[in-house]
C-alpha cells in the first residue's frame, strides 16, 4: 500500500478568482499584510501496490490526464 498526496493549484499567470476573493476578505478582516492568495486542491490517494517507481509513474499519468487540467493548473505529488 503506497499513499500519495497530490497538490493542484491554478497556474501563477492565471487569475484565481476564488483566491482573490479570499484575499479581499482577509484584508477586510484586518489582515492587510496578505498580498496574494491562491486556492488549490489537495488529494490523498492510496495505491494497491508496493512498487514505488510504478506508483510514481501512474500518479504522474493520473495528474496529467485527469487530476489537473494542465492548461490552467500546475500539480505536484509526494509519495509517502
Amino acid at each position, binding site marked *: 500500500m503506497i499513499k500519495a498526496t497530490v497538490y493542484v493549484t491554478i497556474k501563477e499567470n492565471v487569475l484565481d*478568482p*476564488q483566491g482573490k476573493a479570499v484575499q479581499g476578505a482577509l484584508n477586510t478582516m484586518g489582515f492587510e499584510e496578505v498580498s496574494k492568495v491562491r486556492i488549490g486542491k489537495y488529494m490523498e490517494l492510496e495505491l494497491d501496490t508496493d512498487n514505488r517507481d510504478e506508483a510514481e509513474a501512474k500518479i504522474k499519468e493520473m495528474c496529467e490526464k*485527469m487530476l489537473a*487540467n494542465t*492548461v490552467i493548473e500546475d500539480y505536484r505529488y509526494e509519495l509517502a
Partner: protein
Amino acid sequence: MNFAVIVFPGSNCDIDCHKAVEDTVGQPVDYVWHTETNLSKYDCIIIPGGFSYGDYLRTGAIARFAPIMSALLEAAKQGKYIIGICNGFQILLEAGLLPGAMLRNRTLKFRCHQADLRVETTRTAFTGDYEVGEIVDIPIAHGEGNYYCDDATLAELKANDQVVFRYAGSNPNGSVDDIAGICNKEGNIVGMMPHPERAINKLLGSEDGKRMFTSVLNAWREKHGTAITNS
C-alpha cells in the same frame, strides 16, 4: 437529419435541447445515455448544460472519460456537427476538442440572466443563418464561464476565425477577449456558454437561438444535396 442529445448523470438541459430540436426543425432527435458507445447514426450531436458528475474535481473533468466520449471523438473526426452548450462547452474543452479551459466567474457570482451576444462568424454549421455583427439575445446561467486561453491560443483563434460569439454588453464572467463561444478550426464543433435552446420562442423572451438549429439543418442539407429552406 438525426440529432442526438447526450445525457450524463447530472445533465439538466437535455430536455430543453430535445424540445428545441423538435420545435425549431422538427427532425428526429434521441436522448443518448453516457454509457452508449455508438453515435454513428447521428448527424448532429448536442452536449447539453447542467452539472455532469456534480462538477466534481472540475466541471466536465469526469464526463470527459465517459464511455460515450470515444464515439464523440470519432464523430468529431468524421466532421459531424457537434455543439456543446454551457457544461457541454466545458466538456469539449476538457476533452481537448476545443482549445482553452474554463475558470470560475471572476465575480464568483452565478450569473443567470439575458445576455447580448455579437455573432462573430457565420462560417460554422450553427451560425450560417445569422449575419456577422448581428446582436442576439440569448440567456446565460453559469458560475464557471470564464473562458481562458493563453496569448498564443487567442492569437490563433482570431487568425483562424474561431471566435463565434462575444459578449456585446458587459462581460458577465471575465472571459478572455469577451469570448462567449468558439469553434474548432474546421467549424463543425462549437462550444458556447449561453443557452440557445432557451431562446427559441418569444414567450421565453427571445427566439434568437432558433436559427442555430435551422443553420445546422441547412448545413446538413447543403452537404447532402437537398433543398435549403428559409423558415
